[in-house]
């Protein structure tokens, strides 16, 4: 239940953002993080960004995900 996944911010309107999670675009809230811009990576948990990530760190986690062959499903996102 404490799963969280890196995502790239593609659009921001106030605290509402669209993010790209492994190719899937989803709405996300940015209320819990400061200074996020389009193109930044954030860590998403249950529809909220809980941390801003350095691109290199986000990409490393995503690479580890892919190594595991983790399929993207609701479980992974929740």
């Amino acid at each position, binding site marked *: *239940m*404490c*799963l*969280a996944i890196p995502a790239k911010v593609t659009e921001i309107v106030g605290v509402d953002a669209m993010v790209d999670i492994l190719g899937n675009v989803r*709405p996300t*809230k940015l*209320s*819990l*993080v*400061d200074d996020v811009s389009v193109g930044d990576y954030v*860590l998403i*948990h*249950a*529809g*909220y960004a*809980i*941390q801003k*990530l*350095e691109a290199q*760190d*986000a990409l*490393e*986690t995503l*690479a*580890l*995900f892919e*190594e*595991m062959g983790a399929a993207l499903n*609701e*479980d992974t*996102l*929740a």
Partner: protein
Amino acid sequence: MKTRSPDEFLQTIHTLAVKIGRRVRLMEVCGTHTTAIARAGLRSTLPESIELVSGPGCPVCVTAQREIERMLLLARRSNVIICTFGDMIRVPGVDSSLEQERSRGADIRVVYSPDDAMHIAEEKTEKEIVFLAVGFETTAPGIAATVLEAVEKKIKNFSLFVSHKLITPAMEAVLHGGASIDGFITPGHVSVVLGSNEFTPLAEKFTIPCVATGFEPSDVLEGIAMLLEAIAEKRCGSFIQYVRAVKPDGNPRAREILFRVYEITDAEWRGLGIIPQSGLRLKKEFSSLDAIERFSLPQIPPVELSDCLCGDVLKGNIHPNECPLFGQACTPRTPVGPCMVSSEGACAARYKYGG
């Protein structure tokens, strides 16, 4: 990219196990770790002297039975729509579950985010929408932010059944309960919010190491190697393996929003009983969003499921397969207790992946 592979971490672990020369018990207190460890079959790769034991880290599993019964009472109200994260709906009550209530006509919806629940409230103004606010410090800030937005939007038909838990008091309760633990694999995403500094007082009080650890197999193995290194060198403290996301101070903004809405209170845990200052409740100014008050839900006397040893599993006293019901009367298809229901429960993970 990491410069060290899982095999290299394993080599370090085996070397350190020999150096330490005694049995070492490490506890993970996060359901996501429980699943990650079982899925990757990590137990079988470790030296025999290194034991990984699951603690009270699965939010659904630690929810007290009488809280489950109260959720069921709520689900039976005709004007209520219950919104919940997925795992909760199959948790058995004494004579029902949310899933069974749904098959009898109750409106129970699985949501991905508390924000989704709030949107349902905006659409279904003729209904009362109750979100089951379950989860640790990772989840509570987002729910708090949803509460603030619901208040701002003056959404009147939205409320929360709050059953949040705080992980640090539970870790302390496990140690006070006498479980022999040499180190904690600290929850990675709880640590994103709280910061690794949160665990320093506990580490110093009990002179054990804590390592905030990520969730991929190489993360977990590196976390274990760091714990063993600290144990070998007799160092205690709170350290970070999951440097990609965890900072010593965590996410102060998330904590600020969390504590704008919630305050700390005593909470009842399955298996661990009432732990002082280990839960959250809505602050007085948000009490109109408290489903327990809104629906005058009665107090329920303590209930335990007969023969179910989830409580002992959650305290780290036994491994899932030491419960006589495990794999016999209790399977993921016919779960007796929540540790077999939740995909993150220690029993479900052990049943599915073995080890």
